[in-house]
């Protein structure tokens, strides 16, 4: 019981401490609002902006969702291809390692040149940063398997297709979802960056505008909304993971990824 309570109390206190630190410094140091507005000012701005949020929130959610879904589908497909062909694996692995090192975000302006201002560019940048964690984790999950499990499969004369779908695939699920958790946070970053470099809509675009107008409270309110979107996506991934892998005992989630 004490454990349970402590489990909820400590994180709440940590959050409260950050807010107290923020509001405390506003009261003590009295910075001008364009440097650091108080919590109340940000909330007031959030409310005052009202229906104007809708279009921007939808645009950002679209970019994240499209990029994330593409990353999941293509990342998984790529992983299956890689593990199913030795030749392909040998050909592609060095390329993958190289591309892993390249900062994908650096392509953002170039992607803008290729696809123009709009959803395609934003979603593509989100996809680019979210794709590799899905691909690499899923591939590792499909390959990483106890040798004894494969001996067992041979001894019971299981066919290769059966081994893939009934052993390798479920075995890869925890890895797959670990990749999805990372990808979900990266997709948010990618979509916002996409809106920074070239967009006429979205919360990232709004942050740039707010900055130019020295409307820091609006910028912080937009950051708050982006975080909410990110949390919802992350939560959805964790929930899906719990539903798909009840046998893992809910070991996933934030604890496992940290």
């Amino acid at each position, binding site marked *: 019981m004490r454990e349970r309570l402590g489990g909820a109390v400590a994180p709440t206190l940590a959050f409260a401490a950050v807010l107290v630190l923020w509001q405390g410094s506003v009261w003590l140091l009295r910075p001008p609002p364009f440097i650091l507005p108080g919590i109340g000012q940000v909330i007031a701005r959030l409310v005052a902006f009202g229906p104007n949020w809708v279009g921007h929130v939808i645009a950002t959610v679209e970019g994240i969702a499209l990029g994330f879904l593409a990353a999941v589908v293509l990342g998984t497909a790529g992983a299956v291809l890689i593990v199913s062909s030795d030749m392909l694996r040998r050909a592609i692995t060095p390329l993958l390692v190289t591309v892993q090192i390249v900062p994908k975000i650096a392509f953002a302006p170039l992607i803008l040149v290729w696809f123009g201002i709009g959803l395609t560019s934003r979603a593509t940048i989100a996809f680019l940063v979210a794709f590799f964690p899905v691909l690499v984790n899923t591939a590792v999950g499909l390959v990483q398997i106890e040798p004894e499990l494969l001996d067992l499969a*041979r001894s019971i004369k299981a*066919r290769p297709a059966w081994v893939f779908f009934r052993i390798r695939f479920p075995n890869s699920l925890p890895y797959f979802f670990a990749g999805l958790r990372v990808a979900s946070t990266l997709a948010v970053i990618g979509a916002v960056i996409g809106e920074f470099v070239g967009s006429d809509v979205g919360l990232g675009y709004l942050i740039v505008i707010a900055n130019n107008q020295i409307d820091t409270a609006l910028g912080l309110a937009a950051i708050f909304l982006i975080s909410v979107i990110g949390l919802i996506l992350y939560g959805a991934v964790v929930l899906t993971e719990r539903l798909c892998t009840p046998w*893992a005992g809910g070991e996933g989630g934030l604890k496992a990824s940290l």
Partner: protein
Amino acid sequence: MAAFIEIRDVEKRYTTRAGSQVALRPTSLEIAAGEFVSIVGPSGCGKTTLMKIVAGLLPCTRGEVRIDGVPVKDPPDGVGIVFQTPTLLRWRTVLDNVLLPAAALRRPRGRYEPVARDLIRLVGLEGFADHYPRELSGGMQQRVAISRALLLEPRLLLMDEPFGALDAMTREEMNLELQRIWNEQPKTVLFITHSIDEAVFLSDRVVVMSPRPGGVRAVLDVALDRPRGLHVREHPRFVEYVGRIRDLIWSKA
């Protein structure tokens, strides 16, 4: 009459950059149907290698293994294996893990489910059929693995240090359990262990292997009445067997 299992001059070498390394020196052994035979030896003596060759999981460099007169190439029919670790599928319940060999062969579940439930009862896991492996202790998981190996009523049961990872007390308990299971479902068992005590307790015959590179040093008949209880370990003959095997393993032959 030919033996049920014939191991004839089986040798295993690995070719490495340093040259050819012997994992198992030429080994010959015959096992009769229904016999419980243990292979005991120190780590690295090649006993697991020998088991894998008998199981058709590893090709030998020389020699031949025949089961019921048929040379072993791939994993043969009618052989159940229990590995060093339980090797259960985490996403399958106890019942579904026990049913795995039937599922892999696409045999009808309905026909095997009663068998699986009987086996789960036989190994003392009644009431755990719907649990996931992570909810079981190490000893319980290995019981599931034994049920799984027995599902298709194998003629031969291969066990590779199945209790090696368990604590001493659970191990003693599992030895008793295995003897009971073997009494209820008599079959040929080839049991690999590094515990001399365990080998003597369970077996009709004990095959003693020498340290690396391993080969068979001696074969001992264990003349102790069955069923053997916990206190058979204090029997003078039991003590004598254990002492003799220990001497055999470490003697410089």
